[in-house]
């Protein structure tokens, strides 16, 4: 059974703004699905529909086998939700939040306390459990939010931009936890605007732009779709010798326009050609100063599919204001 399945899922807001415009998803149980897109692309609106916080205006969606519109109560029992901008009350302690979450899910007090203690330990907050959330760092808040989402042992976990604004160390901690949870069988639906995050965590990635899915697949498949790896190199005493160099490089692949004074060549037959290229340049009396092997990134995929870069993309204010 698919953990998440949508058919032509759509949400139109007042004024005819189509934040989500016919999205088909099929996320298998046990998968980590990365939903990638810039601000305003429809990520948050999609997550809000899948988590029953917003009703679809078109199409259908089931989560854990239940229809989000017809059986929202069943869906809520099955899902864990950690939304963007971790909504935590600074006046509560970490332990109180976990207790509140357990109670809202109808867990008996002892069971909630037991699970809560285990979860707080799991995310490394045992020491801070009785401190107010207002004193927590950004990373601690996200970890607490994650723990709160897990208190009822959900089968599908929704993480909306779980590491936005976090430092690299905190980000790594969240990633490790997500991977562990997934290894234990939890399906994870993750939205992100970080390529690295999707690349590292997701089994499959869906790229959303202007409310539609424009590409979907494993990160590796998507990247191989848009291009081959290329070499960027510069020579010792390069001036005046570019033509010689390009002649040598052309034997290995298509030369690309030079960038920042570096010479570029696409590797027709993959990375195995790096060695022979260096040897060939050496034989031609061209000494290599620096050499970088550049793999196509998810950003290249994004550019190829949408014509714009992902990180640093401009916000679309109309959509964002509504999707909030």
């Amino acid at each position, binding site marked *: 059974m698919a953990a998440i399945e949508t058919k032509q899922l759509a949400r139109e807001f007042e004024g005819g703004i189509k934040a989500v415009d016919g999205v088909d998803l099929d996320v298998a149980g046990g998968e980590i699905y990365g939903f990638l897109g810039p601000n305003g692309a429809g990520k948050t609106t999609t997550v809000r529909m899948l*988590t*029953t*916080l*917003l*009703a679809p205006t078109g199409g259908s969606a089931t989560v854990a086998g239940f229809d989000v519109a017809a059986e*929202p*109560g069943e869906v*809520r*029992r099955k*899902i864990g*939700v950690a*939304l*963007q*901008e*971790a*909504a*935590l*009350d600074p*006046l*509560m302690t970490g332990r*109180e939040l976990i*207790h*509140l*979450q357990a*109670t*809202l*899910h*109808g867990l008996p*007090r002892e069971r909630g306390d037991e699970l809560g203690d285990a979860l707080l330990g799991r995310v490394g907050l045992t020491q801070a459990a009785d401190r*107010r959330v207002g004193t927590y760092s950004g990373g601690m808040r996200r970890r607490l939010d994650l723990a*709160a989402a897990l208190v009822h042992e959900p089968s599908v976990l929704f993480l909306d931009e779980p590491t936005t604004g976090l430092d690299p160390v905190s980000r790594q901690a969240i990633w490790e936890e997500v991977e562990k949870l997934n290894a234990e069988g939890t399906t994870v639906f993750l939205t992100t605007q970080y390529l690295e995050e999707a690349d590292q965590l997701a089994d499959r990635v869906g790229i959303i732009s202007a409310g539609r899915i424009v590409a979907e697949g494993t990160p590796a498949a998507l990247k191989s779709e848009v291009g081959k790896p290329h070499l960027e190199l510069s020579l010792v005493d390069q001036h005046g010798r570019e033509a010689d160099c390009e002649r040598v490089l052309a034997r290995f692949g298509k030369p690309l326009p030079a960038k920042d004074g570096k010479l570029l060549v696409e590797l027709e037959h993959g990375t195995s050609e790096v060695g022979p290229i260096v040897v060939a340049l050496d034989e031609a009396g061209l000494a290599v100063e620096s050499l970088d092997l550049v793999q196509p990134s998810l950003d290249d995929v994004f550019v190829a599919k949408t014509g714009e870069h992902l990180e640093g993309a401009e916000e679309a204010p109309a959509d964002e204001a509504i999707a909030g």
Partner: protein
Amino acid sequence: MSARQSGGAIRVLMRRALNEITRVPGAAIPGVLAPSIFFLGLTSVFGSLTLLPGFDTQSYQSFLIPVSLMQGAAFTGAATGVNLARDIEQGWFDRLLASPAPRPVLLAGLVLSASFRALIPATFLLIVAFAIGAEWPGFGGLALALLIVMGMAIVAATWGTSLAMRFKSQSAAPLMQAGMFLAVLLTTAYAPLELLQGWLQEIARINPVTQVIEAARQGFIGEDVTWAGTWPGLLALAGLAVLFTWMALRAMRRMTA
């Protein structure tokens, strides 16, 4: 969710709502002081109104205590709406909406906390009033007044939360406060019905909050507390609470629509 599970959920939500006054030093002070300050000011300025022909009560303080009690309850209830609007803006309320707790349970947690919170300004006001010589209303009169304070806070809280969920913004706060202010003001708050002029008399006559204030007033103005003097007030509170609860639950459903 069983009744026991619902009760547990309501309790944790109430406790969380009360953190606001127990954990933020000074946060409760304005809400506690305001009704007492109004009370002292008004009784000082208009204390001689009782000399008017047709004003049966001897002490204006006694006449005004229930009004200030209702004001305190109404402000406390409306503040619950403002707090909810903040929780909606900041995303906290999504946490509750994404949980399987029944929607009426979520509302009850908010609204019932207001009914207990409202006892704080009421207690302070009564202490001030008795200190400056207000008459003892009898245990029955006092108990009834406090019950009505709690009921009025529930009415104001359901009103405030329904607006919070409708507008999803703290900018709706003036509407929450002003609505309750007018509801209490346009009654027999400051003078008996017979002494009110024209339009105000007409509005006060049909305003259900008039019944609420008259019921709470019984013990304070030296009358016996009777069922005949009580039930119209309780009925008015129940009617308003049912109406605003319906509005609030409808607004909550629409939030996820």
